[in-house]
């Protein structure tokens, strides 16, 4: 067991898959000699050569489109977006071409991964902090993965690469070097897509969340236990598409009070979908309205006091939880 960061875990996962399967190759901006803006692919060019580590022009649509073409031919492309904010530039290619290929074109396979940094809390301003999962949730054919821990980051990137379908892999940049965990060196970690993880057991209420917000939820849960004697369950969804309805049902039926927390803006955010599913499937189990804690409905501002105000904080989770518990 050695301590590795969330970033190193992703690096290892990529490396292992490239060693295991020669069909896997990488493409993206500045991923070769430079090793990527966050150095996730440092050393890959040297090890795997420039046929398998391809520095591209600044062309997100071409990156995603070319990955699709190569995937059709049996390769396993892994695209890096320098920041996921720029995946918006490939929105049409991704949602119209890639996501529909299998369905519309007689089973045309398009196994590819698009990975890169998401998220705020880093003073990145409106265009280097986005948490864009909601923009892609409503596209059948895509899978969306948002790991919170180093173990999951490694296990899920490996599963994403082996998956037969296009996967968006959202790495939280705040966690890159802040999360450190001991990972086994011998055991191969493969975390299945589509399965949530119970990050903390509890009985009084649950917080359903994912990505960096998992840590805020755990912090809030501890504080609530300490200060209020509340037993709070934390469910880390890990994969948003497909969504683990069974795990959601389980925690809702067990705790009867639900808080959904996400970093993205409230209106149109993923919490809406989850609320609707809970409502449809577990209405009778709800002892209180499902509450959402999310970013305020503004573009994410840059200055620290503004960013801190707009993004949900642990204190917001604590406040909303108390409201729920008292309901």
């Amino acid at each position, binding site marked *: 067991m050695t301590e590795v960061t969330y970033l190193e875990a992703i690096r290892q996962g990529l490396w292992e898959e490239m060693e295991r399967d020669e069909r896997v*190759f990488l493409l993206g901006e500045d991923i070769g000699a430079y090793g990527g803006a966050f150095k996730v692919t440092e050393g890959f060019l040297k090890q795997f050569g420039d*046929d*398998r580590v*391809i520095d*591209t*022009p600044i*062309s*997100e*649509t*071409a*990156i*995603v*489109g*070319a*990955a*699709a*073409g*190569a*995937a*059709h*031919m*049996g*390769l396993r*492309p892994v695209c890096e977006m320098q920041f996921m904010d720029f995946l918006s530039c490939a929105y*049409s*290619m991704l949602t*119209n*071409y890639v996501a*529909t290929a*299998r*369905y*519309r*074109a*007689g*089973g*045309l*396979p398009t*196994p590819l991964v698009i990975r890169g940094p998401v998220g705020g809390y880093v003073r990145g301003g409106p265009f280097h902090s986005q948490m864009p999962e909601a923009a892609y949730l409503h596209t*059948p*054919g895509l*899978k969306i993965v948002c790991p919170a821990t180093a173990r999951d980051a490694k296990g899920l990137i490996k599963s994403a690469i082996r*998956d*037969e*379908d296009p996967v968006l892999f959202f790495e939280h940049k705040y966690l890159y070097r802040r999360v450190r965990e001991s990972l086994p060196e011998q055991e191969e970690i493969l975390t299945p897509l*589509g399965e949530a993880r119970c990050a903390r057991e509890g009985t009084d209420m649950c917080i359903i969340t994912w990505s960096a917000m998992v840590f805020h939820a755990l912090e809030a849960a501890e504080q609530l236990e300490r200060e209020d004697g509340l037993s709070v369950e934390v469910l880390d969804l890990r994969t948003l*598409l*497909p*969504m*683990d*309805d*069974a795990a959601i049902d389980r925690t809702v039926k067990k705790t009867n009070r639900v808080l959904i927390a996400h970093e993205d803006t409230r209106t149109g955010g993923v919490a809406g979908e989850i609320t609707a*599913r809970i409502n*449809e499937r577990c209405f009778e189990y709800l002892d209180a309205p499902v509450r959402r804690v999310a970013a305020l409905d503004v573009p994410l501002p840059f200055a620290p006091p503004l960013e801190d105000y707009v993004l949900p904080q642990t204190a917001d989770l604590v406040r909303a939880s108390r409201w729920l518990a008292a309901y």
Partner: protein
Amino acid sequence: MRPNPEESQPALPAGLSPEGAHALYYFMRLTRSLEERLVNLYRQTKVIGGLFRSLGQEADAVGSAFALDRTKGDILAPLIRNLGSMLVQGATPLEVLRQYMAKAESPTRGRELNIHFNDLERGFLGQISHLGDMVPVMAGVTLSFRIRREPRVGMVYVGDGATSTGAFHEGMNFAAVQKLPLVVIVENNGYAYSTPLYRQTAVSALVAKAAGYGVAGVQADGNDVLAVYEVTRAAVERARSGGGVTLVELLTYRRTGHAEHDNQSYVPKEERTRWEANDPLDRYRDRLVANGWATEQQIQALDDRVLEEIATAVATCESEPMPEAESALGGVYANPSRLSPEWYRILDD
């Protein structure tokens, strides 16, 4: 130049056998006649959705596709007006009819329309509607050829209008930098829907765009099937031998409206008349006969064969059912599980 079998006959272009010369005619005629039959079916409301013609552009589609090597696994991505290219690669009239008539047995099982279908084995990858998208995708297809050191070539078609898209630009540039074995056929047919070339671009010839990407550029008479074949074949050879991308501009003309509903009110009449006189099928037929490459009888036989094949296909297709409603489900993901969003459908009441 290959040795000339009969002294009196001009030589065929390099690489083209006498059978090939006949095949070119056959595919052009098949395209023309199949579309004519589709117009009929459209008027009988048996075609679902719009109908897009390639009348007058058959040489450009057929001649360019014919320059690929079907024994080497070359792949092309056609546009809506490249029915001819699809046929050359082995798509059948029955498949096309089934697509247009939304039949259960159609290659996409009724999910997609017209010639939006694919078979990578036969070497065609169907387009989606979003113009320009196939350029990056074919860059990726040909990237796989290079990564695997396969001597295969890709070909992608783009309309004059589609050259304005960001996707075209990004794909062209990507392929150029990577020196991929890709032939880009720019079909300059004068219009994008109702928009004439000069409102689409400030260049007078689209081949001028090649210089901006640092790739080879050539232009040819798109209504001369042999000229199309020759320039494309050179581009295919360049691609296969590591010379990278060629942009081939084919000058042709869209003689019908954008689709059958469009009456072309925006088109000057003389312009249409002029291009009617430049029909690629007529021209090639005359040339075949004049050069002694085919006899009138051989041509008649090809025409007959085409009509018969279409008639058989129509008969088969018409009797077939549309897909079952429930077949709309499935196939969004490779391994639908209980977690798949497809599964999350109408709740039990």
